[in-house]
């Protein structure tokens, strides 16, 4: 095992982990305020689909921006269902996941893609209309730092979204634990009726965090597609949204711990693929494919068991809609 091999694995670990990190950052905010966004996978795959189409039509930056807006919109739909209409969060979340997976499936049909792309940008050349591939986000190595052995590849030779995810982890941790807004979010998730009695607009806070979680999930999808693996196929995110859900619990709802957890998951996945190259663990693709669903079951058990919730310090009113008058 050469040093190049190690560097490559570490770099891939961080790149893989960033998918989980971005998705879990938003989810942490939603869950801290008491809303469980189980639509994560649907929002993620819609982000991937949006970035696929729009990066071909308009280029990278507009694609990333529009993906975030699409995710925010899906988050907004979830907030109407889960916060305002007070429906069961598990059910509406899964419904949005199915919606996202279903909608994104449209882009698998070349005819539909062609029509949409021509509407967006009539001047596109023919081969761009039918491609299943997008241009990958360029890596921006940070001068000097990227030359450090091992660490340089691991932390300082990535595309812009990886840096963004790290900066936002720290920023969102600071906001959550050191500022008034963070205290408000955490309190709403612990005891909304108390927050309400102190003049906090519980519904507004929950709507906002749900929209944020949608935007970040979609951003994760966009990163996954144009930043990591720009080849379209149906169901391209392959349940990674569900893994991000489990990661939120592993990180015990802290954006900083989410970094470690995300890279751990990213490392496991990278390692599996690498080992396959050596002909080891031939059965592992099935194990990996199964992982999201096992994680989902575990997540659902954890958040619906009162005693476990208490033990691991879950927000006390996670998953419980708030209504003022009985």
């Amino acid at each position, binding site marked *: 095992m050469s040093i190049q091999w190690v560097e490559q694995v570490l770099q891939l670990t961080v790149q893989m982990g960033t998918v989980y990190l971005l998705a879990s950052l938003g989810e942490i905010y939603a869950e801290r305020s008491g809303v469980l966004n189980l639509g994560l996978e649907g929002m993620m795959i819609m982000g991937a689909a949006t970035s696929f189409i729009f990066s071909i039509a308009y280029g990278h930056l507009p694609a990333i921006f529009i993906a975030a807006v699409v995710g925010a919109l899906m988050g907004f739909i979830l907030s109407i269902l889960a916060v305002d209409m007070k429906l069961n969060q598990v059910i509406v979340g899964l419904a949005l996941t199915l919606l996202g997976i279903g909608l994104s499936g449209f882009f698998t049909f070349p005819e539909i893609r062609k029509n949409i792309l021509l509407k967006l940008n009539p001047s596109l050349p023919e081969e761009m209309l039918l491609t299943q591939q997008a241009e990958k986000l360029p890596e921006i190595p940070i001068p000097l730092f990227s030359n450090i052995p091992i660490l340089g590849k691991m932390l300082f030779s990535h595309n812009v979204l990886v840096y963004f995810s790290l900066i936002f982890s720290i920023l969102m941790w600071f906001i959550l634990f050191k*500022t*008034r807004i963070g205290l408000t979010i955490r*309190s709403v998730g612990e005891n909304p009726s108390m927050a309400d*009695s*102190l*003049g906090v607009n519980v519904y507004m806070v929950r709507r906002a965090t749900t929209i944020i979680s949608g935007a970040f999930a979609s951003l994760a999808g966009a990163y996954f597609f144009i930043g990591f693996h720009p080849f379209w196929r149906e169901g391209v995110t392959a349940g990674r949204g569900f893994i991000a859900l489990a990661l939120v619990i592993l990180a015990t709802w802290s954006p900083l711990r989410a970094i470690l957890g995300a890279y751990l998951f990213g490392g496991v996945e990278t390692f599996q693929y690498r080992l396959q190259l050596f002909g080891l663990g031939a059965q592992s693709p099935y194990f990996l494919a199964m992982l999201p669903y096992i994680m989902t079951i575990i997540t659902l058990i954890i958040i619906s068991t009162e005693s476990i919730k208490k033990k691991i310090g879950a927000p006390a009113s996670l998953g419980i809609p708030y209504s003022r008058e009985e």
Partner: protein
Amino acid sequence: MTELVSLKGIVKHFPGVLANDNVDFTLRRGEIHALLGENGAGKTTLMNILYGLYRPDSGEIYIEGRRIEISSPRDAIKLGVGMVHQNFKLIPSHTILENIILGLKEVGFIINYKKISEEIRKLAESYGWRINPNAYVWQLTAGEKQQVELLKLLYRDARILILDEPTSVLTLQECRILFQALKRMAREGKGIIFITHKLDEVFAISDRVTVMRKGRVVITKETSKTDMSELAQYMVGRPVLFSIQKERTQPSGEAIIIKNLKAFNDKGVLALKGVDLVVKKNEIVGVIGVTGNGQQELVEVIAGLRKAAEGSILIDGINIANSSPDRIIELGVAYIPPEPLKYSIAPNLTIVDNLFMKAYRYKPYSNGILINWKKIYKKADELIKNFQIISPSLSTKAKSLSGGNLQRLILARELSGLIGDKIPKLIVAAYPTKGLDIGATEFVHKTLIEYSRKGSGILFISEDIEEALMISDRVAVMHDGRIVGIFKPGEVDMEKIGLMMAGVQVVPAI
């Protein structure tokens, strides 16, 4: 006199209930104003309107003479109105400081923990409270939590403080500390509204008192110009006797012997840490204590609803610990659970169904396969009469009964000897009068005393000390999963009872 608050003609409907019917209320600067009434009289509704949690259907609110609209707690807080709710609104996993500053824009974007912590400490000290603002709320006693609730209001410079039954979870000593602080706040010019249904508290603390009944204000008076029986009469609408004539019967033989009983609560924490208690036949043993010290777990273990971890419960020499509920019922234990609607009634079934929910399996109401409805209806008519259950018909759904009638129904089911036509050997009554009006409470008391005279042993759990002293032959004080003292009413004064409730051993525990 300056009027801080003036409510005029407040009307509030809830589906099927007129909670406030044209209510007038005033609060002066520097006064403690008791708002007295039975449960459901409309006190809390009225205060929730002043605090912006409910919108009134009609009526006007004036604060310092200015007509205002309050549409949310945020408005109320801005106007200087603060409320301490009956159940603490605190977040156990956050610190005291975090609980206090929640929702306050003035603390700035980045919270300056050091500075605010110092401010809170000083504020608390000025009322004689010693707290560490960085301690977590789950570490606090009930009395300290109450102080945090008050600090929440004081830190916001509230001038109008509403306290909804603030003493219900406090020990007597904690109450005294609270009352001192409240009087001090009143001297500083704040107006305090003290919601209660306990008469003695009205006289202990208030300057004026307003009595509410069935959504209306009956009277507002200077506290010094009235007395207990007059207020009680306003509250209930008829004269009330404050003592029950109780002929003592000599206890004979043990109805139940509990030895070193240990059990866990729902969170897996040891809630009963070795309870020793004996109830004799013909005897009522009252169990008092601050709620949550193991009372609930104790009655559940006896009724077979909770596993005992250690120890024994003997009835006629048979250990019933960890027996199934139906075995325990067959041995003659009647159980009146707390919160009848939750634990003791199937709300959508009829009164008859609910009355015979235990007896339907036994002769003569069943032959093992079919239910003999003829016999059941005949017996039900008799029970309705004996237990004075008021209802349109036997096939009315149980959920339409009032609280008092529900409790009568449960008493009828549990006590009337439906199974084998015998009276119960042991009656376990957990908070049987909680939330009932005075009439229904009297009925429950009389019924329990009657059965103790007939030979039942009665274990009577109550959170009302005076009630327990009034009807019990012996009173046991429970603290932290143990019985810390047993005495006869009259042997021990209130001061010592308060100490025992706080865990101090004053009299022997057996």
